[in-house]
């Protein structure tokens, strides 16, 4: 059964209460974020249907929003999501090489997940950190001024972590 914990559910109610009666749909994006966090890092259809039910809106109203924003994952993702920026400034500073390097190292292409379920590579548009290009977002943190070496180190660390 897909269901938020009591605590999360209260949080949902709190977010919904920010908007006037009948406008619960406004809470959709924050609630989707919570759902993605809670239910395995991506939005499966039953999860979105559950969100629709919570907000008393139609399922299709959830689907159209969720598929529009790239920060919502429509397929299962690995434990670590590598979101590499590929907008102008990062591109000029060599993000393509970084992306290629990650692909080679992990043996996956864009949007794919490694067989061990550890990594997903996902190119992203501007993450607002152009001064530190090339960069990527890893979970809730930014990794900046990326080089191939930095990427290798990062991946090795994460692999090691997973083993312990």
């Amino acid at each position, binding site marked *: 059964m897909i269901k938020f914990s009591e605590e999360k559910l209260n949080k949902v109610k709190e977010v919904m209460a920010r908007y006037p009666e009948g406008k619960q749909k406004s809470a959709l994006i924050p609630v989707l974020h919570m759902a993605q966090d809670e239910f395995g890092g991506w939005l499966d*259809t039953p999860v*979105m249907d559950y969100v629709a039910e919570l907000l008393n809106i*139609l*399922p*299709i*109203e959830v*689907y*159209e929003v969720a*598929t*529009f924003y790239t920060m919502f994952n429509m397929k299962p993702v690995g434990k670590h999501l590598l979101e590499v920026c590929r907008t102008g400034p990062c591109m000029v500073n060599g993000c393509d090489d970084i992306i290629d390097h990650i692909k080679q190292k992990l043996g996956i292409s864009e949007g794919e997940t490694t067989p061990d379920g550890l990594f997903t590579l996902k190119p992203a548009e501007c993450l607002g950190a152009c001064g530190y290009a090339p960069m990527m977002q890893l979970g809730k943190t930014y990794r900046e001024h990326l080089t191939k070496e930095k990427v290798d180190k990062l991946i090795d660390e994460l692999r090691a972590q997973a083993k312990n």
Partner: protein
Amino acid sequence: MSKQYYVESKPAAGGVISGNGMKADAKVAYVDDKPYEVKEGETILSLIRRHFGKGAVPTLCDAPNLEPFGSCRVCSVDVALSKGGPVKTMASCHTPVIPGSFIYPESDRVQKLRKNIIELVLTDHPLDCLTCEVNNNCELQEVAARVGIRDVRYPEGKTHLDKKKDLSHAYMTSDFSKCINCFRCVRACDEVQGQFVLSMGGRGFDSHIIKGMEVNFKDSDCVSCGACAQACPTSAISDIFESKSIQVDEKVRTVCTYCGVGCNLEVAVKGGKIKSIQAPYEAETNQGHTCLKGRFAFAFYNHKDRLRTPLIKKNGEFVEATWEEAYDHIATKLTEIKNKYGGDAIAGISSSRGTNEENYLMQKFIRAVMGTNNIDCCARVCHSPTAIGMQRSFGTGAATNSIKDIKLTDCILVIGANPTDGHPVTGAKLKQFAISGKTSIVIDPRRTELAKYATYHLQLRPGTNMAIMNMMLYYIISEGLEDKNFIEKRTEGYEEFKQEILGQNIDELEAICGVDKNLVREAAIAYAKAPNAMEFHGLGVTEHSQGTHTIMMISSLAMITGNVGRPGVGVNPLRGQNNVQGSADMGCQPYQGAGYFEVSDPVYHKKYEEFYNAKLPNYNGLKIPQMYEAALNDKLKAMWVIGEDMAQTDPNTHHVVNALSKLELFVVQELFMTETAKLATVILPASSFLEKSGTFTNGERRIQRVNAVVAPIEGTKSDGQVMVDIMNRMGYKQPELYDPEWVLEEISQIVPFFEGVKWDELGGDGKQWPVNKEGKGTDILHTETFKRGKGKFIHNNYKKSKELVENEKQYPYIITTNRELEHYNCGAMTRRTNNVLIVTDDVLMINPVDAAKHQIVDGDMVCVESPRGKVDVKAKITDEVKPGILSSTFHFPEVMMNNITSSVSDSEAMCPEYKVVACNIRKSKGEYKKPKATV
């Protein structure tokens, strides 16, 4: 301006001066500096198109039956607020006209903009027009040509040719490589059908239409209404019949035969065969909408199972015969029986699916030639209580208002009807009403689709409508919400009625119907307080032992609140079959002839005798259930039935079959070898509605023209021709050739409310009766006075159904029958179309609580047993029904649901009580057998 694309209508004669039909105070706007009259609230697009024609402004995202959207900007025009003032480019389709403004629909800048937009659209389109199904009938092609595209200056973005076509569904198809993201399909699904299947997913070049969460049509919630396909300007969404292809010889407008909404259809014919069906946007009944039955379920018409030659039963076997032989056989037999036993040994059942003309001829044949009033029609088993009840209260048994009034009302009250399945196009309008948040009250034992959106759902126990009605009236009176003025001026019998109502024991009624009295009170107050409230009801009211009583209470509810006689109010039966209204109007009932005159009234008896120049009996004939009794008692020897499958659809099947098997002559006119036809002694192969002309009268009294689309299937004859032939054969002279024109002419002489009806003058949308001498129809009844003078309050108490009183101890469950959107009644037609791929068999709805009690899981076969018999049916576990209540359809002969229904009928009209059957259930031992698909 480089090129004039449009024919200019005459401009207004400068400023605000009258002339050219303009009122002196009319507001104007200037198009290319010349003044044109502006209508209140209209858009710039509508102003320009009204004066210059449709081609004056190109559009892409706009569609005739959808709200303006403003996404493509192809309709842009330049607008200035004063002459020579600053100019702004606006999308004309959703911008209201500002009176006094200056509009330039073809300025250079606008032309450039439009071209650029289309170029951008084309970067995202495959341009493989030559192999496209809508080539030459594509709005994108049209607009591209109109704005003068010669090349596309931008690099190709995406062709989307990698997108897979969706061919999963029985009817709907999609090929999203052809999609231009105009949103028309999404809006059609939302605004017209209210199904919310489609939307736009993704972004940028990847934006694409999604069905549900990226599922295919088959797995989506789509109800196959086809609105999106018709709305789509390209071939991106279409149907298996390629209804937007130009490969047709002609298109014929006719009327759907599947329900009382009476949708207009535009049938495309190619090489003498029906190719596809669309719906005309300008049709008053359906504005471009249909349900899947009207649009897609036509394949039955040339199905291999169609009967193509008359059959006479000899020694228990059907033997092929010519029409001559069949007619001879029938005529000889009928004469013999008539001479030996008298005309009353003969009876006819006409079809509410047939045309007015055919119904009229059938009753004429039975009355004038056979000399009996034993004529009835299937209205007996559905809406006869409506006719009788409303006649007693108001004087006329027909819908008081029009469907278009849904737009004008403030509150809808829907009782015992599941319009989104039974009357889908009206159902969609009611659903839109409820979704919009306006007050809607649903009274139904099932949580129907409409109930899910309603403000109030009174989920009563089956058979307790009268309890709820008494409660609602009680609250209206005790809260002082009655319309005293209306009651005093327009009604009679109120004081007595009021005392009866106030004497009701509300707590007892609450216990009977099982609905919280406070909820009933709130709903009653909402209905009474609404400035205009409109009532609708279906067979959930009529198919009960107290059907007629309930109708009279509903009529009282409308009168007590003054909701009769103006737009947006009234009592409106949702007519089941396409021509239930018409068959009653035409006199296919044993007590009233054409035009509803009592056959036993000496004045009218004489009138009919003179008109038909024949000797007629002056007493009532037999109603359908009485016919069966008479046959069992050897009083009835011959029966003639047009297109009704009583052996499957009438209650208590064993009883019916026994009765029919006893007949000496049993003539059945049919399309297919139905369960009833198998019992016939003579079968006459009939033509379907697509093969004949005539008129149908829909639920809002609208007499519409049915036009033959193709020639009759070889070997078949229209029911009208058969009637004419047999009358001639039996010495009652009629014109040789059946033609609706002369029949209608004759009808207009005897049926007062058809007085001004002429075949040639009916036009596309028909006319609503009464039609006066000058040919003017009527959209609202009882405006000044009631048909019977004053409206009459008639009270009755709730009475427990005999079925339950007698049987509820041993049979504690109540089963009620219902219908599915995809199938029509006995299913003889719809089961011979791809509809069977969508809904494959009958199901029994059962509440999870009851299911658990009997260890039944979804899909199990359940044995349902009533005092009359038992059937096995597949379980669907759902909380749409309350515990203790079951609900099932009866579309498939394999199940024979009517083996268990009772022949208890309405006390007044003898309409059978299909909706309340006492039964018991258990998990059945048998395996689930899939019915054989007939396609």
